């Protein structure tokens, strides 16, 4: 970076003002900070690669981003999930240029080097020119660790990263409530939507982890329409949000839960026939949350978010609760590729799954009544903070900065009695800052 750029990516710099609840705007715009994030955040964290139901059969593969690299995620002929750099060990050519498929072999289009689904090099174009030792050094580069939780596939490039279970910590309790509420768990409904938004990846990660305040203005339209249709008004939504909880966890993860108002029935928006299953799969406290669940939104550090929300876009239709997972994949400091998956309980009827996806795509998707406005704002944040004067200022997280956590909350994590304080979003940034400033950006070998 040139000096003229006034980069703030130097070692030992603290971008997050811990005691002041403010953050340097440069973290959303500075290319040098993004370069450092690739090493200090993405090459060290557990990153989401997909859902197990995307790869049901041996030989099924998908190609996915992982940091600023690309990997092939494949279910081997032995049934085991693995992930490898999508790069031939000969000259680095991408082995797969399709998004998904099924194969027994990966053959390079350049010189026909061929690997099996376990990443083992089987043949080159002229095997007799290699000795067996060289040959054995040329297997595909695997991720350092791969593991799943509740069907969600994660991997890390860091061999020293803690186990996935430890990395996720107590947010697993909420993930289980959402993804393990039936014996067979959740099932992906088709391949993910993908689109490009010109923003920094942390903007939507913070929005989903968890900015409820924005709904009152950014989503005024769909909420006002919902109110006309007999749904919940934004005023009632804000009262509900001001009763919380928002829950934060070590490691930068966090989520919110908005229960339905008391006069509304239990399990509103969920398929009735699955209720007994929820009650046998989940514990008492999880059931109590799910029973009243209107909205749950969360972010798993660094950039996987979920939304489970009961929504309806037409007057006569009762709300329907759907689940979507989001990946805010950075493509440089000012651009993300947004990945959006939709899920239903495997046990749900085919008709229910169709209706659920329809509601999801009408509300939280590239064309979603809510999300089309979010994306407009996310892009506008980067444009509004990029200038040489604008970036001297801070992004503010001081709402309810001194709020104390609840002492009697019936679930794990540090819970606050309202969504309005920005503690949970600041928790993500505090963790981000600790990774960005410690160890001078240790490089993974």
């Amino acid at each position, binding site marked *: 970076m040139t000096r003229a750029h006034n980069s703030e990516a130097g070692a030992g710099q603290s971008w997050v003002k811990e005691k002041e609840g403010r953050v340097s705007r440069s973290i959303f715009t500075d290319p040098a900070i993004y370069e450092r994030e690739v090493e200090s955040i993405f090459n060290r964290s557990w990153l989401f690669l997909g859902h197990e139901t995307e790869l049901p059969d041996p030989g099924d593969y998908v190609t996915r981003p992982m940091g600023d690299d690309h990997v092939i995620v494949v279910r081997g002929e032995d049934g085991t999930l693995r992930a490898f750099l999508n790069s031939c060990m000969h000259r680095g050519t991408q082995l797969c240029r399709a998004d998904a498929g099924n194969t027994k072999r990966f053959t390079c289009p350049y010189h026909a080097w061929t690997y099996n689904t376990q990443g083992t090099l089987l043949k080159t174009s002229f095997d007799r020119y290699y000795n067996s030792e060289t040959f054995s050094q040329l297997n595909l580069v695997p991720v350092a660790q791969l593991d799943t939780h509740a069907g969600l596939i994660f991997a890390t490039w860091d061999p020293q990263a803690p186990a996935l279970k430890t990395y996720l910590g107590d947010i697993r309790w909420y993930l289980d409530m959402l993804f393990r509420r039936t014996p067979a768990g959740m099932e992906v409904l088709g391949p993910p939507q993908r*689109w490009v938004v010109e923003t920094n990846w942390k903007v939507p990660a913070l929005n989903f982890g968890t900015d409820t305040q924005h709904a009152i203005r950014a989503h005024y339209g769909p909420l006002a329409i919902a109110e006309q249709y007999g749904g919940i008004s934004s005023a009632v939504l804000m009262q509900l949000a001001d009763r919380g909880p928002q829950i934060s966890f070590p490691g930068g993860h966090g989520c919110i839960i908005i229960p339905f108002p008391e006069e509304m029935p239990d399990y509103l928006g969920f398929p009735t026939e699955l209720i007994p299953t929820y009650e046998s799969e989940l514990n008492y406290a999880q059931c109590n949350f799910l029973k009243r669940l209107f909205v749950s939104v969360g972010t798993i550090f660094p950039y996987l978010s979920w939304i489970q929300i009961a929504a309806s876009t037409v007057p006569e239709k009762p709300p329907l609760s759907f689940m979507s997972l989001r990946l805010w994949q950075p493509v440089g400091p000012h651009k993300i590729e947004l990945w959006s998956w939709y899920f239903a309980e495997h046990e749900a009827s085919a008709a229910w799954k169709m209706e659920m996806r329809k509601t999801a795509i009408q509300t939280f998707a590239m064309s979603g*009544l809510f999300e089309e406005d979010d994306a*407009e704002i996310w892009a506008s944040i980067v444009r509004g903070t990029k200038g040489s004067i604008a970036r001297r200022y801070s992004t503010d997280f001081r709402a309810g900065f001194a709020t104390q956590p609840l002492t009697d909350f019936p679930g794990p994590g540090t819970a606050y009695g309202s969504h309005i304080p920005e503690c949970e979003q600041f928790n993500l940034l505090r963790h981000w800052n600790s990774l960005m400033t410690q160890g001078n950006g240790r490089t993974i070998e």
Partner: protein
Amino acid sequence: MSSSEGPSPNMTGLTAVTDQEYRHVTEFLYYEAQLLDRRKLNAWLELLTDDIVYRVVAPTVSALEDEDQAPEVLFMDEDRASLRTRVLQLSTPEYTVAENPPSITRRFVTNIFATKEGRTGQFVVTSNLLLYRSRGSREAPYLFSAERQDALQRAGDRLRIARRSVRLDEAVLGTRNMSVFF
């Protein structure tokens, strides 16, 4: 042209349209595009049947040998009631951020093939759509390219859209939202 050649040989029960019918269909599609470009969204809603099925998909990238089975990604799945909600949002200034200020759009409709379904008398029409969209004052415009397949119903001497299937020509959409109609 009227369409003895198209749109596709695997559609059974389709017959050719007359020159006059072809002109009717073509002018209807041009009129519709003009309404959308001029943001006459409520007037556009009047062109849809009560039971319209409106879907937008995008392809996934698959190997050539898997092309026929490659899944599509659903981007819009709408009916008359949900489209009405969408129009209410997009045409009310305080209800939309995405379209306030509004996009400047220009729709180019070409390659129109029209056939007639013998049993129902509705037109089955394929067309190509290039949707130019400009946002703000500092952004490069974006182009959505798509193939549309419509079923157009006759209501007296007027046409109404009973089904629209849009297939976008990109696996990863290069713009931030889809607050437009195709």
